[in-house]
């Protein structure tokens, strides 16, 4: 059966102009956000289509729609000209669509062969798994992609690149017509990336349609045949790669209508409060150096995995740097734990609100007073009235929307949880506040409130570091931007140098030839 489909797909020559998969007018709304707005996408057999867009443009939503995880509110999905509806992941898989994710969704405790055939293992008599047949076919598929892997090896013993190979083998085992690759090279080394490109060529030659999601322009121009650009959940362009320049693609991706209003700010930074020199980590980042002044908002831009959060978490005492110096108000400080960081006036609002930010299960006021208990208590004994007073002061400043201050913080919306986390830190009267993706996944209203509040904090003389992957936010809020790439500072941009294009170029390493 496998062979017959293979010959069938081979019939579709790479020059065929009929798309194998067509999305039309797809709209998907989440509470407060229109993630996809009437988008279309066409994938052609034997061709690689690059899907380009900023974070939040709707790329992951479309992948989830294609793989049956999300159901669109409107629009049609056609596979080989027939209307289909994916209500489960199995439906999408049955239609020949498979995805290889950034972080592979495989099973560490199972073997290579088991991972390849999970869900569709060859069955023998009495419905038992035919292990010999499974190994044989796994071997066959692995050979086809030149993967030198033992089918009986447990997956956990493999590196990330080999895991990708297993994911690809899995895609071949279901004989996928459409292969989605979501930033497949993000975690790979140079050599492994080359091997992946070869594989993509092979998949193309077999007539499979490939949707390739990447932030790296060099690889888009190297392996893609077509492109589709999403911006803010809308389809803004598509065409042949051979007919567009890098610069035009960048412009298409970031150019936007002024649909978000950022607070007007006077940039009047004064004394230097934080100085970081030669800050390094064995694997995550190297030679990071920057200064931060009172009243300044310093943006940190970069692709996912560039090492921005790792630097910030290290400054906050979560991970240990291998070398480097941190000076606060000119004095060298050694920060070994978050408690040390808080004592020295550095606070951190993490990206992962639910796991690292809010203590779900505790009421709002207890979340806020957590690092300030010494302030609200007397000789170690709690004083609830003081706690409520402190919580009230800061929740009102942040315009929190909640039923009561003793409500479980877990019952709040993402935006309001974020306000609670920010309120918690402001109550400690910090010198430096680090906000990691402060508006990720929160509604427009809360976003504006968080932005306005950041501006207010800077105006009051607080030094703010904002890690953000959203270009409008970086542009709209920062006085100065540090762009990181692969654990290093790629550029420091300010004034006229700070444009969406320069941000993207430095983050992706375009035109520097050192990639």
């Amino acid at each position, binding site marked *: 059966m496998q062979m017959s489909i293979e010959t069938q797909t081979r019939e579709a020559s790479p020059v065929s102009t009929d798309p194998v998969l067509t999305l039309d007018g797809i709209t998907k709304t989440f509470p407060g956000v229109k993630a996809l707005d009437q988008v279309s996408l066409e994938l052609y057999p034997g061709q690689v289509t690059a899907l380009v867009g900023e974070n939040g443009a709707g790329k992951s939503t479309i992948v989830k729609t294609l793989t049956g995880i999300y159901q669109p509110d409107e629009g049609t999905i056609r596979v080989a000209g027939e209307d289909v509806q994916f209500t489960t992941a199995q439906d999408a898989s049955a239609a020949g669509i498979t995805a290889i994710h950034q972080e592979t969704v495989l099973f560490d405790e199972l073997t290579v062969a088991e991972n390849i055939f999970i869900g569709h293992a060859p069955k023998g008599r009495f419905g038992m798994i035919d292990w010999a047949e499974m190994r044989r076919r796994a071997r066959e598929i692995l050979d086809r992609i030149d993967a030198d892997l033992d089918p009986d090896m447990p997956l956990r013993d493999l590196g990330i690149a080999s895991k990708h190979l297993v994911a690809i083998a899995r895609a071949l085992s279901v004989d996928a017509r459409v292969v989605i690759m979501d930033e497949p090279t993000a975690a790979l080394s140079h050599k492994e990336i080359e091997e992946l490109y070869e594989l993509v060529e092979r998949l193309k030659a077999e007539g499979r349609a490939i949707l390739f999601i990447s932030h790296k322009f060099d690889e888009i121009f190297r392996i893609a045949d077509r492109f589709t650009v999403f911006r803010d959940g809308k389809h803004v362009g598509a065409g042949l790669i051979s007919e567009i320049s890098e610069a035009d693609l960048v412009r298409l991706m970031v150019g936007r209508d002024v649909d978000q209003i950022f607070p007007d700010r006077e940039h009047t930074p004064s004394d230097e409060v934080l100085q970081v020199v030669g800050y390094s980590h064995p694997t995550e980042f190297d030679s990071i150096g920057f200064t931060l002044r009172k009243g300044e908002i310093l943006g940190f831009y970069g692709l996912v995995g560039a090492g921005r959060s790792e630097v910030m978490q290290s400054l906050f005492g979560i991970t240990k740097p291998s070398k480097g110096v941190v000076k606060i108000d000119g004095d060298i400080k050694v920060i070994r734990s978050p408690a040390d960081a808080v004592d020295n006036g550095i606070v951190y609002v993490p990206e992962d609100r639910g796991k690292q930010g809010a203590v779900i299960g505790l009421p709002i006021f207890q979340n806020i007073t957590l690092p300030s208990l010494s302030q609200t208590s007397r000789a170690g004994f709690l004083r609830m009235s003081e706690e409520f007073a402190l919580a009230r002061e800061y929740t009102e400043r942040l315009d929190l929307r909640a039923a009561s201050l003793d*409500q479980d913080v877990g019952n709040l919306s993402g935006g309001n949880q974020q306000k609670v986390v920010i309120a918690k830190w402001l109550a400690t009267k910090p010198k430096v506040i680090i906000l990691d993706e402060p508006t990720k996944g929160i509604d427009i209203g809360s976003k504006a409130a968080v932005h306005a509040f950041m501006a207010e904090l800077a105006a009051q003389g607080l030094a703010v570091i904002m890690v953000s992957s959203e270009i409008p936010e970086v542009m709209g809020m920062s006085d100065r931007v540090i762009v990181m790439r692969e654990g290093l500072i790629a550029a420091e941009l300010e004034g006229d140098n700070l444009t969406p294009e320069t941000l993207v170029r430095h983050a992706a390493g375009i035109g520097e030839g050192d990639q």
Partner: protein
Amino acid sequence: MTDASNTRHIPDRLQSNAARILKSWEVLLLGVAILIFVANSFASPYFLNAWNLSDATFNFTEKAMIAFAMALLIISGEIDLSVAAIIALASTAMGAAAQVGAGTFELVLIGLVTGLTAGAFNGVLVTLMGLPSIVVTIGTMSLFRGISYIILGDGAYRGYPADFAFFGQGYVWWVLSFEFVLFAVLAVIYYVVLHRTNFGRTVYTIGNNATAASFSGIRVARVKFILFLLTGLMAGVAAICLTSRLGSTRPSIAFGWELEVVTMVVLGGVSILGGSGSIPGVVIAAFVMGLVTFGLGLLNVPGIVMSIFIGLMLIGVIALPRLWAKWRA
């Protein structure tokens, strides 16, 4: 946002404290305790007697002392299953000291220090080495009691000083035993520590989300280490009371108590997953368990059946709070 007229007023609380208490697990449990009390008084004519009731408290006082510290430990998301073995170890240490003529003061000191040391040992393995407490304390459970068996074999230590008997057999006033008074004082202390201090607040915070607690500047490992120390210390205190009450030490002393202590804590409404629970709940649960075992004892129910009962109770109390939470929601 700086516009005051636009700022909504958020009330401190929607529900009064009284309403909250009335709907709590503790009140339900108190009802159960009263029912058992009444049932017992009908079941046996010997039950409603001041001295009998006083005797009944010995069924739970020593276990409850450990349960207070264990409650804090479980709320923080950890557990110590070696507590009964710590009793054996501490009792053996005291017995050995008594053989060479140690006085009451020295014996108490030895009991407490042994408990603290054992707790510190657990604490180091869990907090410094990052091992899961359930595995660590199953291991130390065998280790501590194993040491007792090696030292004592089939034998027993006797010959404790006469005034050492006060801790387990003495009365402070009329029917109020020293143990019961100590239990009451410890209940108050643990209530204050858990519900009225910054330390207690950090215990809840860690139990709900240890990562966010650490990201909020709480020294999570330090707090957990202190809780293991406290639990070891309470096992030491219980060892003093129990050894004094029995007047002898065998390596099988307090065998299986860890389950009864955990049952008491969970019955008291402490979530086995950590993050919630209260000392009043544990106090009431102590009375419930004491009354049940005493009632069954008066009815001549054999010990084997009682242990079946304890097992059923442990399963029941883990299931019941979930049903209770569903019913409330």
